[in-house]
């Protein structure tokens, strides 16, 4: 083999492994942990003197935000606030140090829909305890919005309180963390593999997904080759690609509003 070709192959391999390393280690993706699957729903509409607090201990080092769902009990429009605070030990005891605040209107919320609340900037954490406080200081007793609260206690790392008592359930929330691609894949593989027959090993499960990905791409390759074998209109092909991209944009478009937790 000519020296020039060997150099080309080596350059290709270096690019492949460097690209792979960058993709696997440098690219960061959001990971939304689903802590609740099935739950009965309780609702506690928030008003002037009535708030709800949920304790929470992050299990990853970088918190990007939260996903919440709400229940609307009437159509009144009023602002609602969510405060994220860190539980801190002081000489006078434990206090909650407010870190972030999100403010939104009930008019932007539909019952049962999931809404992302992004921390700006993201928060580095280290197994500390945090509190989420839901309140609506300007609303009256005809308040219209409640975070969705489960009927039983599923989340064992944080208590739930209303202004007046300890609640039996938990506020339904999903923390969103920053992670890299291998941890992202590993998270889902571990959770899907757990307790499953045949596929209870994540590497075996990974093999199934990899095989599926190969055939998923293979069918598309077959279609492309079949198209290329015959005479076809280039403009039509571009139109098809354009339509597919458009469809992807439509499907990928997040129609519900995204909210921001601003740093205090």
């Amino acid at each position, binding site marked *: 083999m000519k020296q020039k070709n060997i150099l080309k192959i080596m350059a290709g391999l270096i690019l492949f492994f460097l690209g792979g390393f960058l993709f696997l280690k440098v690219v960061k993706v959001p990971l*939304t942990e689903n802590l609740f699957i099935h739950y009965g729903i309780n609702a506690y509409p928030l008003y002037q003197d009535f708030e709800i607090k949920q304790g929470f201990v992050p299990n990853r080092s970088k918190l990007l935000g939260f996903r919440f769902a709400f229940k609307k009990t009437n159509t009144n429009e009023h602002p609602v606030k969510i405060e994220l605070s860190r539980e801190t030990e002081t000489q006078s005891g434990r206090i909650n140090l407010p870190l972030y605040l999100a403010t939104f209107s009930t008019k932007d919320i539909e019952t049962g829909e999931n809404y992302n609340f992004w921390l700006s900037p993201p928060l580095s954490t280290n197994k500390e305890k945090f509190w989420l406080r839901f309140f609506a200081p300007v609303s009256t007793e005809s308040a219209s919005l409640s975070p969705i609260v489960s009927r039983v206690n599923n989340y064992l790392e944080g208590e739930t309180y209303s202004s007046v008592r300890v609640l039996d359930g938990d506020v339904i929330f999903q923390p969103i963390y920053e992670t890299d691609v291998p941890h992202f894949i590993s998270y889902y593989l571990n959770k899907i593999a757990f307790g499953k027959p045949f596929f209870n090993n994540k590497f075996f*499960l990974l093999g199934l997904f990899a095989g599926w990905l190969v055939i*998923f791409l293979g069918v598309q390759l077959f*279609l492309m080759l*079949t198209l290329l074998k*015959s005479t*076809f209109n280039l403009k039509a*092909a571009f139109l098809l690609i354009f339509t597919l991209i458009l469809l992807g944009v439509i*499907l990928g478009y997040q*129609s519900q509003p995204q909210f921001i937790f601003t740093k205090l």
Partner: protein
Amino acid sequence: MNSERLFLILLSIYIFLTGLVWAVVVPYNEAPDEYTHFDVANFMEQNRRLPVFGQDENMGVSKFEIPGVTLKYNASYSAMPPLAYLWQATFISLGKGNKAYLLARFADIILGIASSWVAFKLSKSLFKSFSLRAAFTVVGVITPQVLFSFSYVNSDAILLLFSFVLWYWLVRLWTKTVNIYEALGLGLSLGLATLTRYNVAPLVILVVVAFLITILKSFVKRQISLKKGLFIILATFFTSVITGGWWYLRNLVLYHDLSVTQQFWQTYHQIYPFNDHLNSWQILTRTDWLWRNWQSIWGVFGWNSILMPDLIYKILLGFGALAIIFLLVLWVNLNYQEKTVVFFSGLLLLSLVILSLWQSQTYAFQPQGRYLFPAWPGLVYLLVKGWQQVLPLKINHLKLLNKKIFSFGLIIIWLYFDLYVLINFLIPTYY
């Protein structure tokens, strides 16, 4: 290897692997009545016999819904036609413990692969070009709701397979008469189809009518003698009765009820009282029955609780409505056979909608697209045939869309449709 064979092999592997991924991702019993279906198949495997409705109590709905309550009968699916459960029990016998449910799901994935073969065979009678045949097959078997049905334990998967089989016979019978060997195949198909689900009845009736008309036409045209015609009819009749009739005879002997539906619903209503009786008109005008049927024929997951965004169903509605408009406007371009298949599709869809409406009015309000599955091959035909009418699509002599681009575009969209459902709904709901 020719393109057709390669296409079928690739599609079979795709259905096998995608079905397996979905079957592993969706936790057990996170699909409509999965435990109720599984209980019957599991009972058959463990006891090596069919369960008797009302006697073999330790299965079914009431066990889970009202703990400690003993009812005269149990609304278990032991009253339902047994073919799906016999098929699943065969697979369950390959493993024990918590493997059993996945093996039963595996049985349904195999039905998905078989459906793709039959759908492609049917497509050869419906379309001349390979690309349109491929599009018909892909939409027919990997639409998310259909793929979902092939990935959990139910009786809809086997109904889908036999719907494609009976549609093949329907189209086949309309084009030429049958010989004695084909009569045996037709009889077998009809008999087995009656053991799938009761909502296959309108399709069975349509095929029988088409069969009798074909024999009559052949006799009038002197293509067959009276003796041969009668022989073919009797051969078909007895094959179907021997294959499927035993189940109904058993029902008569055991329960004095051909279908056991009365006893089943009596028990069901003890568990779920049915008080909100609406008549058909009220159901259609005061509820979202039609829209929920439309949604759930394309993709509603979990216990009919995981929906895609409304925009998706609206895009599909637009796509379907345009196909119907193209068919009606360009009706004169269709040949006799195409017009007949369009007519059959419409007739069957209407019959099944009426049947489903009657069930929602009489027994339980259940707007579920899967009740329309026997019309599914016809519905897919209407979609593909409708769009075929405007192909090639030209603007100022510029060919924008030909059959190949349309078909392959549709296939790619449908592949990503499955991926979209997996990544956006199935995985995030449970993990």
